[in-house]
């Protein structure tokens, strides 16, 4: 128990910083902060999908499924956010469950392409079926909740609300990953035949990770549309999907916090080079290439590297660099 206190103190400090940060920011940055917290949920839920070793290209579209669900429920049935968020997750999970049947007949590259095609098919529905999805222009008029005189249209209250919901979702995802289910997902990833030989139904576990991951990204989509107020198909295209992949790869995907580190650091970085305008994509790209070259295991591997330099490589012998 005693050796836990640095962790507890660290967590409390982090919590204090996260709670205090919007008060030091301008309006524009408060907006970005909210989207950052939502994107933390996007990458963490994506991590659950990748635990089985399958990298899908449909995660961004699943976020859109959640967003459109929340939008239609809000506009059509005047349901508040407390109902639209869980339903956004459930609808995304249900569509993911249906897609399991065709998609999980494939693995690796075929799965990657298959998931992309399925995602584009869904996105095309949003474009082509103007009723009810609004076509390329999308839909608008979605509002955040209004409770006890707190107007969640203001960024700071909505930030705290988002923080609480995303925090709860992260806790659930963390518990899943650190339970027996997480261990089984790892086993499906690394040695599927061995896992099968002791009775693991690999199809079921791949499907489980995909469905649960889609649920949480659906919730993230709902959170986003309730703040932004509008939704359109281009928000969830391959461009956003590539950003998700970049965040996860640059952050590192061997630990729970890796993708979170990736999305936070890269978002801050992207903001800090805003003044360079036309050079921004080039700088961003260069940093990506450098980080992949020099930190193939992602930002999360930096502490272990520092430790191994400081300790003359003694951690390497203990396997600290290779675990996880």
């Amino acid at each position, binding site marked *: 128990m005693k050796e836990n206190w640095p962790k507890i103190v660290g967590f409390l400090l982090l919590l204090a910083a996260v709670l205090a940060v919007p008060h030091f920011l301008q309006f524009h940055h408060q907006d970005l902060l909210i989207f950052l917290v939502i994107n933390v949920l996007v990458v963490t839920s994506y991590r659950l999908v990748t635990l089985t070793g399958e990298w899908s290209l449909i995660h961004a579209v699943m976020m859109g499924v959640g967003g459109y669900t929340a939008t239609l429920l809000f506009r059509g049935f005047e349901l508040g956010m407390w109902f639209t968020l869980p339903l956004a997750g459930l609808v995304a999970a249900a569509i993911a469950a249906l897609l399991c049947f065709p998609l999980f007949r494939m693995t690796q590259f075929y799965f990657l392409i298959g998931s992309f095609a399925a995602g584009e098919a869904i996105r095309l529905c949003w474009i082509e079926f103007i009723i009810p999805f609004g076509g390329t222009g999308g839909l608008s008029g979605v509002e955040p909740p209004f409770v006890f005189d707190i107007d969640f249209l203001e960024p700071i209250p909505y930030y705290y609300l988002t923080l609480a919901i995303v925090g709860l979702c992260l806790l659930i995802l963390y518990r899943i990953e650190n339970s027996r289910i997480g*261990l*089984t997902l790892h086993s499906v990833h*690394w040695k599927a*035949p*061995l*896992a099968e030989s*002791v*009775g693991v139904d*690999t199809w079921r576990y791949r499907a489980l990770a995909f469905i649960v991951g889609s649920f949480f990204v659906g919730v993230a989509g709902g959170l986003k549309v309730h703040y932004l107020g509008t939704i359109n198909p281009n928000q969830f295209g391959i461009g956003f999907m590539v950003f998700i992949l970049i965040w996860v790869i640059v952050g590192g995907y061997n630990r729970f916090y890796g993708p979170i580190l990736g999305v936070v650091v890269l978002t801050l970085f992207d903001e800090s080079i805003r003044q360079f305008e036309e050079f921004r994509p080039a700088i961003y790209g260069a940093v990506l290439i450098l980080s992949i070259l020099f930190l193939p295991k992602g930002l999360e591997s930096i502490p272990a590297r520092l430790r191994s330099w400081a300790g003359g490589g003694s951690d390497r012998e203990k*396997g600290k660099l290779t675990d996880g």
Partner: protein
Amino acid sequence: MDNPILEIDSVTKRFGGLTALNEVNFSVKAGEIRGLIGPNGAGKSTMFKNIAGFYTPTSGDIRYQGRSISGLKPHSIAEMGIVRTFQETTLFQELTVFENVLVGCHKHARINLFAAIFGLDRARQTAAAQKVEEVLEFMGLADRRHQLAAELPLGSQRALAIAIALASEPKLMLMDEPFAGMNPEETNHMMDLTRRVQESGITIVLVEHDMKAVMGLCGYLTVLNFGQLLAEGTPEEVRNDKRVIDAYLGGAA
């Protein structure tokens, strides 16, 4: 033969034009160590994959405890109590020894999503951890429980592969070349372990090229050659069977 746990009933497996197994018949008694031997390419591993559900026989039937299992998925067959170990060392290299065996407990320790999130089902998880300790003790791996599988010496890696299989509480274990690449000391140790597994009540079918191990362990041998059943008998009978000698020496003897 009384009380067969496994019956192979004229099993044929074709891959396109290639017949890997041709009308093979044999059955395995509960409690024995059966050797399945033959020259390279005789169809031994193909037979294992058919039994374990990784392949489906083209024709014929495989029965386990009287029930047909051909065409079932590997995890369903594992569920019924058949476990296979793999050629070479197939382990979860990046997990610890303890975690490797914990994966093996899947059949008895799996949990649903809600139990995982809310931390229910502690009793079963504790029971699984105890089972892992028992198996590690049994296989002599208890001291290495926190080591990564990748860091173990060869002998311990093979023992761990068997430990994972044992954790699933099988009735029938299919062992695919567990002695390959071992030095005499490791071979002796592995033979002891294999006997102890049998004494704990598990039937074993052993595919192996190491004749010392096969002759020392198995009470009865089944010999395959070019996908066909060549001979069956005690190690003594098989050793002196002219057809077997010809098959191994390519007819030159």
